[in-house]
């Protein structure tokens, strides 16, 4: 396989801190190997900027293998770029053609303040997790394996929900800036398992209420599922909606038993 190189023109969002207005700047990326990842291409552009004594573009990345959820970027108007089921770090330059114009913006939502350039704060997603995205267990010595029987189907669906890496692409792609896909995945990977049952109704109410403190409302477009690097299903949103209204009744009953 022979290595080919391409030249692309980048329109990059530059914003010097949360209070800055921000603007697009144009950079030429020359002789980029089509085998390099999108983030490696940005690294090369940054090396060039440093050589020219300019401020490099700030962007986030960590594992660069699609499992940590740190990378973000709206690439040509799509969260994590044009390919389905991929994070930005898994996007390779072979997806683009020589001479392409690529627009790069941060994930946008009122609750995703831009820290600098393409780096955003996703602390609002953490707040949702803090509200109930855990189970309260007594931690002692390790329990015996298979002590808690879990049906295969439940384990499979819970695992599909647990695949969420919390990158925020669903919020970025949503025309309403809603965080339904993230929140429903985090709620359901616990609510589908026996370990999550005792706090099920408290969890769904607390996490949805916290979500609504920061994010918009779902209109069932389905853009989040298309943008999701882990292809989390829209079915989880329906499960969450069902459990939320049920929780309003159940929590009333539970409170009445005091």
């Amino acid at each position, binding site marked *: 396989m022979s290595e080919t190189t391409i030249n692309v023109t980048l329109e990059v969002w530059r914003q010097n801190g949360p209070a800055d207005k921000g603007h697009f700047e144009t950079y030429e990326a020359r002789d980029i190997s089509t085998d390099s990842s999108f983030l490696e291409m940005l690294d090369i552009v940054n090396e060039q900027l440093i050589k020219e004594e300019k401020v490099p573009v700030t962007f986030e990345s960590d594992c660069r293998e699609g499992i940590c959820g740190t990378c973000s970027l709206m690439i040509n108007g799509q969260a994590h770029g044009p390919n389905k089921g991929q994070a930005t770090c898994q996007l390779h330059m072979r997806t683009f053609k020589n001479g392409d114009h690529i627009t790069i*913006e941060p994930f946008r939502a009122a609750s995703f303040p831009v820290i600098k350039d393409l780096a955003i704060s996703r602390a609002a997603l953490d707040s949702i997790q803090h509200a109930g995205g855990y189970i309260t267990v007594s931690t002692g010595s390790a329990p015996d394996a298979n002590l808690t029987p879990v049906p295969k189907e439940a384990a499979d669906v819970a695992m599909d929900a647990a695949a969420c890496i919390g990158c925020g692409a669903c919020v970025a792609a949503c025309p309403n800036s809603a965080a339904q896909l993230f929140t429903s995945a985090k709620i359901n990977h616990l609510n589908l398992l026996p370990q999550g049952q005792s706090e099920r109704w408290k969890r769904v109410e607390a996490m949805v209420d916290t979500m609504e403190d920061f994010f918009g409302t779902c209109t069932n477009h389905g853009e989040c599922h298309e943008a999701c690097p882990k292809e989390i299903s829209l079915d989880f949103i329906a499960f969450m909606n069902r459990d939320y209204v049920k929780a309003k009744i159940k929590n009333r009953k539970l409170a009445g038993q005091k």
Partner: protein
Amino acid sequence: MAQTLPGAASNLRDPQPIRTRKKPLPFPLNIWQSAVGRKWVMAVTGVGLLGFVLAHMIGNFHVFEGPAELHEYAEALRGLGGGIIPRLWLLWVLRLGLIAMFGLHIAAAYTTKEISRKASDNAGFISGAKSYPGGSDYVAANYASRTMRWTGPIILLYLIFHLADLTWGWLPHTNYTKGDPFGNLSNSLSNIPVAAIYIVANVALALHIFHGTWSLFQSLGLNNPKYNQARRGLAAGLAGVILLGNLTFPILTQAGVIDNADNPCASETTEEGAVHCFEEILEAEGE
């Protein structure tokens, strides 16, 4: 070159809540306090309104039986409840229910849209959707789902026009006579601009129903992987049936199938006269 972040001193980097939480209201009311609950209300009222649209369309097919039969249907609506409930009472119960459903549906739609606008603060919010300065691409959202916030207000405006035209009789082109629904309908829809308004509004209604029918299953959490595939088909089928059914009225009036010349009571200008005229025809038919 030392970099200082302009917002570093303040907490601009921390996300700020877009709402202040209110004290929870007692049980059924607290559903309205959350957006997820409001979407649930929107879905339930949507089902009710969908039922109304279907029943209204099926009832209107009486127009093809003739002027006297359409009058008989209108009279049957007023007399709902038979000899048990006084005339008009049950009809008014249904009407008040409809008004309440419309009100809740619209209030839920408007308030949730405003929440989304607030949540999209640092991008733009144009024609009911977040917009990126560099442009964004829709992948899954279809024309119907993206235009819900336009087709909704179009249907509301049309509804007011429709009531003014055929219920209140405020518009001169209809030459409104209470008690003669056939004459009013054919007079109104034989106008080309009026027929065009009805056609445009019903296309908007069909688009609204196409997304709404699919969406309501998600909002209510009626989700079963076994039946999920059928939801799109159901939405397309319902929207198609309602579009075709409702378009028969303006199109067939324009084509001359529904024509006031076939109305034996067209010359009556008072309610008593029209009602009396139709009752005589129905009695003669019954003999």
